[in-house]
Structure formats: C-alpha cells, structure tokens
C-alpha cells in the first residue's frame, strides 16, 4: 500500500472517530442546555400558575382543559405525601402528545408537582411543546456534521496534495533506483530536495551506487586485463612450441608430450579468447549496430557448417522462413547463430535432425539429442560443462545468453519429444 494512501487511511479513521465523538458530545451538551432552559421555564410557569391559583381559586377546577399549558388534578393525601418525599421539587418527564392540526404526535415535556391548598391536595402539571427545541437541536447537529465533513474533506485533499508534494523527491529516487542497472551505465538524475532526510537518502544512494559501480568496473576490468595480459605469454609459449615441433630428432615419447602441451596451450588460449569476448560483450564494446536479415546470417552459418553436417550425417530442415530483421552488431550476430548451430550439431545424435524456424518475431533452432543430465536452468551459465567433450570450454551458450541480454532478446530452452529447442524472441 502506498504511503500516501496509508496516511490518508489513518487520518480518515481517526478523524471519523473523532467526528462521531464530537457529534455525540455536542448533541448531549446542546440537549442538556435545552432541557435546562425548558425546565427553568416550566418551573417559572408553575410558580406563575400557583400565584394565580392563590388569587383565583376557580382556576383549580377549570384546569383540565386540553388547550391549556397546565392542568390540576386532585389527589389523596397519601399520594401527596409520597410524592413530596420522592420528588420534593417536582419531577420532569418527556412524553408525546397527539396534535390534531399537525396530524401527528409531537414531543412535549411536563413538570409535575404536588400542591396543598386548605387541606385539599392537588397535583399540578405544567407542560410545554418541545417541537422547536428539537428542531434546533437537529439543525445544529446537522450543520455541525456537514461542516465537519466539509472540513474533513478539505483536510484530506490538502493532506494528499501536501504529501504528494513532499514525497515527490522520494518517488523520484525510487524511480531512479528501479531504472538502475549495475551493468548498464545510466546517469541518474537527482532532484535536489530541501528535505534533510531525502537529501541524505539521495546522497547515501549516490554513494552506494558509486561504490558498487567502482567495484563492478574494477572486477570487469580485472577480467579483461587478466585475459589481455595472459595473451602475450600464451602467445609466446604457443610460438615456442611451434618452433619446437620442427626441431630435428624428436623421438616418439617427446612428440606425445609436445602434442599434449600443444593441445592444452591451444585450449588455454581459446578459453582466454572466449573470456575476452564475453567481457567485451558485457562491456558493450560492440557499438556499431546495423540492420541485418536474420535469415542471411543463419544461412551463412549453415553454409559454414555444411561439411560438418554432412560428416555427422545430420539433416537440416527449414520449417519457416519469414523475413526478420535484427538491429545488432553483425559480428555478434554471427557469433550468436554459429554458437547455436554448433551446439545443435555437437549435441546431436547419429543421423539426427536440426530444424530451424524463423518467424517475424522468433527464431528457434531445435535438434534431436539425449536429454540433459542437469537442470536446464543452468544451461546458459558459464562453465556449466556437463558434456564429456574435453575440447568444449562450456562457454558457448553463456556467450549466446550474453548477446541476447545485450540486445534484450528473450531466450528460452525446452525439451520435447527428444528435441532440444532454443528459442530467441526478438
């Protein structure tokens, strides 16, 4: 989950809870204020009526009228005493009353207290309509809610906006890191941020990348330099052996030794050359690309291996021959396809087949052969030499893979029906 959304989510939850709490507090606070006011009014009105009764006793009997805001009932002494102990100041009660012209029940509040007048006991009830106060309460509550929500929305938008702005350098940095590849020299741009943390982050990353790059480059150069430096002594040994074989009077035992040395030095120099090629591909030292026809290059390679195919009694078939253009270094294209073809020839069986298919997007070369004796995921790894061929250096497919990586081709291997297939999707 994005940091921004997470912050928003927390904010949302927090503010919502607070809003609810606030509404509740507000509701009860206003309600209690309103009740206080009403109760005060009812008490006042009651006193007024009692004063009136003292002046005009007739009121005691006319007080049951429905449209009055008070009524008086006679009660027994027993109830009077009980009420006086229970509620010496009278008691308040909410109730609903049917209002004919409204056609519905409306909330009312009444105060009941008891009264003694010349050994007669009465209960006096004062009441008032609560309609207005309820309306006011709900209106206020609604207003509060609406304004709070609006405020809340505003805060959210601002929050998003501000956070977006604040975190922008961070996302930029992340984007940089995502795009960064150690083996590709990409200059990364850093937004100068005024935020200390981000500044530090950028600086640390820059430092980290710089160190990594130096280490990586050192390593790469070491391989390249080592291979280079080895060329000269290997070359000299090579040349001395060639002089040696022409020396007169070499006996058979010596000849066998020389042959062995010669073979090994030949192998060493080939290995060295191949490593150099690999490191050059890695260092992208084949800059000039041209547009080439895949089919032309592959046919050239087939022609090159024609005699060897015949010698091994292999049949080569073209399944599909569509036009496909590749933009790559021509030399590397030849290396790529000749390695694949060489592989298909070498790992084939007696009187086997090689099938080549080129479509607009895909080149696949398959050959008959024994199943792999190792995990196919290791097929394109360096020195995964599993064949028992002493001449093989186990780098052929590693080179193929490197070239594919360089040009961002997708390479895959499959084995089906005793057929090994290597497919390159360009």
């Amino acid at each position, binding site marked *: 989950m994005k940091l921004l959304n997470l912050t928003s989510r927390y904010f949302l939850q927090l503010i919502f809870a607070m809003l609810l709490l606030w509404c509740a507090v507000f509701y009860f606070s206003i309600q209690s204020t309103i009740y206080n006011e009403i109760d005060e009014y009812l008490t006042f009105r009651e006193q007024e009526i009692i004063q009136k009764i003292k002046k005009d006793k007739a009121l005691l009997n006319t007080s049951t009228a429905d449209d009055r805001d008070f009524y008086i009932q006679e009660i027994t002494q027993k109830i009077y005493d009980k009420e006086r102990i229970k509620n010496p100041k009278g008691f308040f009660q909410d109730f609903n009353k049917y209002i004919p012209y409204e056609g519905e029940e409306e909330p009312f509040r009444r105060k009941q207290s008891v009264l003694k007048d010349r050994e007669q006991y009465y209960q006096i009830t004062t009441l008032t309509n609560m309609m207005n106060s309820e309306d006011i309460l709900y209106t206020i509550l609604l207003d509060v809610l609406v304004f709070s929500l609006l405020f809340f929305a505003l805060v959210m938008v601002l929050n998003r906006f501000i956070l977006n702005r604040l975190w922008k350098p961070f996302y930029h940095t992340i984007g940089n890191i995502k795009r960064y590849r150690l083996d590709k020299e990409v200059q990364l741009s850093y937004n100068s941020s005024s935020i200390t943390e981000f500044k530090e982050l950028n600086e640390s990353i820059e430092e980290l990348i710089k160190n990594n790059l130096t280490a990586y480059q050192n390593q790469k150069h070491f391989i390249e330099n080592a291979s280079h430096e080895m060329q*000269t002594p290997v*070359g000299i040994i090579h040349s001395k052996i*060639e002089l040696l074989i022409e020396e007169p009077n070499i006996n058979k035992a*010596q000849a066998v030794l020389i*042959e062995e040395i*010669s073979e090994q030095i030949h192998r060493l120099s080939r290995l060295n050359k191949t490593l150099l090629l690999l490191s050059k591909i890695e260092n992208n030292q084949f800059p000039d690309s041209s547009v080439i026809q895949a089919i032309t290059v592959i046919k050239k390679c087939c022609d090159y291996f024609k005699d060897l195919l015949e010698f*091994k009694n292999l049949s080569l078939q073209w399944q599909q021959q569509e036009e496909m253009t590749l933009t790559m270094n021509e030399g590397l294209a030849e290396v790529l396809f000749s390695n694949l073809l*060489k592989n298909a020839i070498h790992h084939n069986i007696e009187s086997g087949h090689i099938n080549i298919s080129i479509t607009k997007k895909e080149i696949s070369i398959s050959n008959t052969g024994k199943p792999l004796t190792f995990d196919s995921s290791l097929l394109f790894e360096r020195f995964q030499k599993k064949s028992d061929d002493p001449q*093989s250096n186990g780098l052929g497919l590693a080179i193929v893979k490197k070239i594919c990586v360089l040009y961002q081709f997708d390479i895959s291997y499959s084995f089906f029906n005793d057929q090994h297939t290597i497919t390159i999707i360009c």
Partner: protein
Amino acid sequence: MKLLIVEDEIGMQQSIQAYFTKSGYLCEIAGTQKSAEEKIQLYHYDCVILDITLPDGNGLRILEHLKKKNAKTGVIILSAKNSLDDKVAGLTMGADDYLSKPFHFTELNARVTSIVRRLHFQGNNQIQIGNICFELDAQKVFIGDKELILKKKEYELLLFFISNTDRIISKSSLAEHIWGDNSDRTDSFDFLYSQIKNLRKRLNENASDYNIQAIYGLGYKFIKE
C-alpha cells in the same frame, strides 16, 4: 624476400624471426615505433608483420608512414586486443591482413605467403607445386591436367597445406584455420581427420607429386613424395 617484424615482446620477436628465417625469409626486427619507422625509411621490405601495441606508440602510425612512402610492401597486423576496431582501422588504412594473438605460425606463414604472392605475381593468381596447380580466383585445383573436385573445406585445407609446404602443421592449427573460433569441439577434430584422410587418398589416386604425411604426435607435413 625481406620481412620486417615489428614486435615489442622479445620472446615473440625471436620466435617469429626463427620461424620465418627457416622459411627462407630475411628477417629484421624492430621493437619500437621509432626504430620501425627508421627501418622503413631506409630499406624496402616485401612484408611487414606489425604489432599494434608498441611501447612508444601505435602500430597504425607505422602503417600510415608506410602508405605515405607508397612502397610495394604487404602489411599484416597482429593484435593482442582481438578488437574489431583495430581490424577495421587497419584494413581501411591499407593493411593486407589481420591476425589476432595468439596465432599459429603456420597460419601467419600462410597469410604472409599469400600477401607476398599477391604483390609479386599480379594477374597470374596461380600456385604451382609439383604437378599440383591452384587457380586461386576460380578456387580450382588441378593435378596435371585433371581437375580435382574438392569440397569447400577440403579446398581450404589443401591450400593451407600448400602454403606451409615442408613445415610441420599441428592439428590444432589446422582446426583453427578451418573452424576459427569454432574449433572447440571434438567433432571438428574428427571431421578434420576424416577430411585429411580423404585428401590423402585423393592426392594419391591422382598421382600427385606432393602428399600429406602424418608426423607422429606432432601433426602433418606436406612434402614431396
């Protein structure tokens, strides 16, 4: 035939000199760009074997110098860099051939021979050895009057043998000549043995003056029978 070897590694210098002296060339050595340029200024050479990396400069400068002099001199570039740039630069500047280190002497010998032949026998692109005749332009081989029909690789192989007549050719140099960087398979060696066997048979059948002789443990030799 005069040969100038421009090479800074003493071990290499000596080897090349020893090998080509045996082939009957008159070899001179230059270890730096300066001494090479002096020698070129003073003498004429049929072929210059030029190492690109020199302690005091680039071998390509010498090539430039040589081309200015406009001498009829073949140039073959040696480079340890195995770099395509050097190859392209060298060939566009007028070098005749390019060979990356390490190389087989038989390979260098074949190339030098071919360059010298081209420079000295213009128009008549033929090699005659005993009763074998190579028509290089047409890529045809005749023994006496009879044409010897060869496959592509067999032709290459025979030409390589002929360019290294009387010298011992190691198996690995043969494989590398035929298969280049693809010589790293047993297949290619097996293939080679069968080609050589076949070639010997054909030469024998056609009563060739020369044939391939196996030298135990060391390789082959193309000699007069």
